[in-house]
C-alpha cells in the first residue's frame, strides 16, 4: 500500500505549484515560530500569540476594507500591537496580563465592526480565521521567506542576550543588557511570527503553533538550546505530517497540522516517564 501512496504525493509536489508553496511556507514557519514561541513560553507570555493573532485579524480586515494588502495590514497591526503591549505591560506591572486582555478585546472589536460594515469579503476573512495554506501565492511565499529570514537572523544575533533576559531580567540588566529595547525586540519578533503563521493555520489556531512545539520540547529538554532545537524539530514534524495527512484525508491543512502537533505532545508525555527513569539511572551511575 505504502509504495503506491508515497509516490503520489511526491509526484504531486513535483508537479503542482500550490503544493510546493504550501510545503515551503510550512517549513519556513515551522522553523521560525517555535523558536519565538519558546522565548514567549519561558517568559510566561504564552497568551501573547492569541492576542496578536486577534489584532492581526483586525489588521487584515482593515487592509481589505481600505483596499491595501491584507497581509501587510495584518503584519503592521501585529507589530503595532506588540509595541503598544510593551508599554501597557510596563504600565500595569504585575497585572501585565490585563494588557493582553485589553489588546485582544480591541482586536476582535475592530475586526467585528469592519466585517459588519460589509466592506470586507467574508470568505477572505474566513481564510485568515482558519488559515488557507494551499492558497499561498508566490508573493506571499516570498514575504513569508523574507520575514522568516529576518526573524531567524535577529534570533541568532541576539540569542545570548534574549536568553539571559528570559532567564533573569535583573541579572541581565546588571550585566549591561538593555532590557527595555530587547523586551520590545521579543514582542516585535512575536508580531512578525504571528503575521507569518496567520496564513498557515489561521488566527484561531495560531497560538497553538507557537506554543505546542515548545510544550513538547520542554517535556524532554535539559537545556535551553536543546529545547530550542527540539521545538523546531517537533514543529517541522507536525507540519509535514499535518500536510501529508491533510492531502490524503482531504482535511483542512491548518487544523490537521495543529492536531498532529497535539498527537506529538501526547506521544512525548507518554514517553517522558521512561526517559526520566533512564536519566535518573544514568545520574545514579555517575
Amino acid at each position, binding site marked *: 500500500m505504502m509504495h503506491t501512496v508515497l509516490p503520489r504525493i511526491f509526484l504531486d509536489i513535483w508537479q503542482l505549484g500550490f503544493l510546493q508553496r504550501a510545503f515551503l511556507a510550512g517549513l519556513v514557519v515551522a522553523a521560525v515560530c517555535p523558536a519565538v514561541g519558546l522565548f514567549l513560553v*519561558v517568559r510566561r507570555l504564552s497568551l501573547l500569540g492569541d492576542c496578536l493573532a486577534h489584532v492581526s485579524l483586525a489588521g487584515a480586515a482593515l487592509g481589505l476594507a481600505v483596499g491595501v494588502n491584507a497581509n501587510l495590514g495584518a503584519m503592521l497591526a501585529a507589530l503595532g500591537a506588540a509595541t503598544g503591549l510593551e508599554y501597557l505591560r510596563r504600565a500595569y506591572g504585575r497585572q501585565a496580563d490585563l494588557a493582553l486582555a485589553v489588546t485582544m478585546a480591541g482586536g476582535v472589536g475592530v475586526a467585528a465592526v469592519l466585517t459588519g460594515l460589509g466592506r470586507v469579503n467574508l470568505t477572505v476573512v474566513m481564510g485568515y480565521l482558519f488559515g488557507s495554506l494551499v492558497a499561498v501565492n508566490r508573493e506571499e511565499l516570498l514575504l513569508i521567506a523574507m520575514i522568516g529570514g529576518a526573524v531567524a537572523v535577529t534570533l*541568532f*544575533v*541576539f*540569542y*545570548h*542576550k534574549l*536568553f*539571559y533576559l*528570559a*532567564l*533573569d531580567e*535583573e*541579572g*541581565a*540588566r*546588571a*550585566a*549591561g*543588557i538593555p532590557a527595555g529595547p530587547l523586551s520590545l525586540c521579543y514582542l516585535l519578533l512575536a508580531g512578525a511570527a504571528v503575521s507569518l503563521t496567520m496564513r498557515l493555520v489561521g488566527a484561531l489556531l495560531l497560538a497553538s503553533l507557537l506554543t505546542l512545539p515548545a510544550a513538547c*520540547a*520542554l517535556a524532554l*529538554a*535539559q*537545556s*535551553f*538550546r*536543546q*529545547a530550542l532545537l527540539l521545538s523546531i524539530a517537533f514543529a517541522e514534524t507536525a507540519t509535514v505530517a499535518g500536510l501529508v495527512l491533510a492531502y490524503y484525508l482531504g482535511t483542512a491543512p491548518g487544523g490537521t497540522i495543529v492536531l498532529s502537533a497535539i498527537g506529538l505532545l501526547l506521544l512525548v508525555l507518554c514517553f517522558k516517564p521512561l526517559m526520566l527513569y533512564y536519566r535518573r539511572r544514568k*545520574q545514579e551511575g*555517575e
Partner: protein
Amino acid sequence: MRAVLEVHGLEFGYYHQPLLRDVTLAVYRGEVVMLTGSNGAGKSTLIKLALGLLPPWRGEIRLFGEDLHRFRQWSRLGYLPQGTNNGFFTSFPASVAEVVGANLLSSGWRLWRGRAAAERVQQALTAVGLEALAPRSVGSLSGGQQRRVLLARALVNAPELLFLDEPLAGVDAEAAHRIAELLLRLNREGMTIVLASHGNGTLEEAASRIFRLERGRLELRKIGHGRAEAGN
C-alpha cells in the same frame, strides 16, 4: 587612590516613601565592605542602585571613576542577587552551564561559544564545588545549589568588583564555609567585595568595614582587620 564605587548624597524610596536618605559611601580596591541592617532597611536596594537596576531620586553613583549613566564595562562587575526560599529557577529549561555562561556576553554572539567559554564556565563551577553538575537542568537542583550556581555566574567574568546580596542564605554549613573561603581567597587576589548580610562569622571577620543601615542612614559600625588598601 580612586574608589571603585562612590555613592554620594543618594536618596531613594518606594511608593513615595523614602528609604535611603543622603547615603554616602566610597569603596576602595581590595576592600570587603559589609552592609548590615534589619529586613527592609535598604541593603539590597543600595546594591541595586549601585548597579543601576533602580533609578535614584537624588544623588550620584560612580563605578571605577565613571558616572553610572556612562559606565559600560559591565564585565568588571559581578552580582549575586538575593534568593528566594523556593529557589531562583523553578521551571526554567536551562542547564547549569547555560546559566553560568549567560554572563559571558563579551564572548560573542555565536550560538556555540567554543572551548574557551566552556572552560571559564567549568572553572567558575569548580570554584563553587558544582563542576559535576554542569549538564544538569538547573531546575532540578536544590535552592542552596542554585544559589551556588548564581555565585558561579557572578564569578565567571573574574570581576574586579563583586556585589553579593545575602550570599550564604539557604546554603548548608559545609558549602557556606567553602564559599566564605573562596570569597576570602578572591579578595586576597585583589577582588573588591560589597556584600549585604545579616552577619556571618567568617565574612564579618574579614570585612574591612561594616556599615549598618538604620532609618535610611548608613552608619559605620566597625573597621575590621580586612585587607583594605585605603579607607574613607
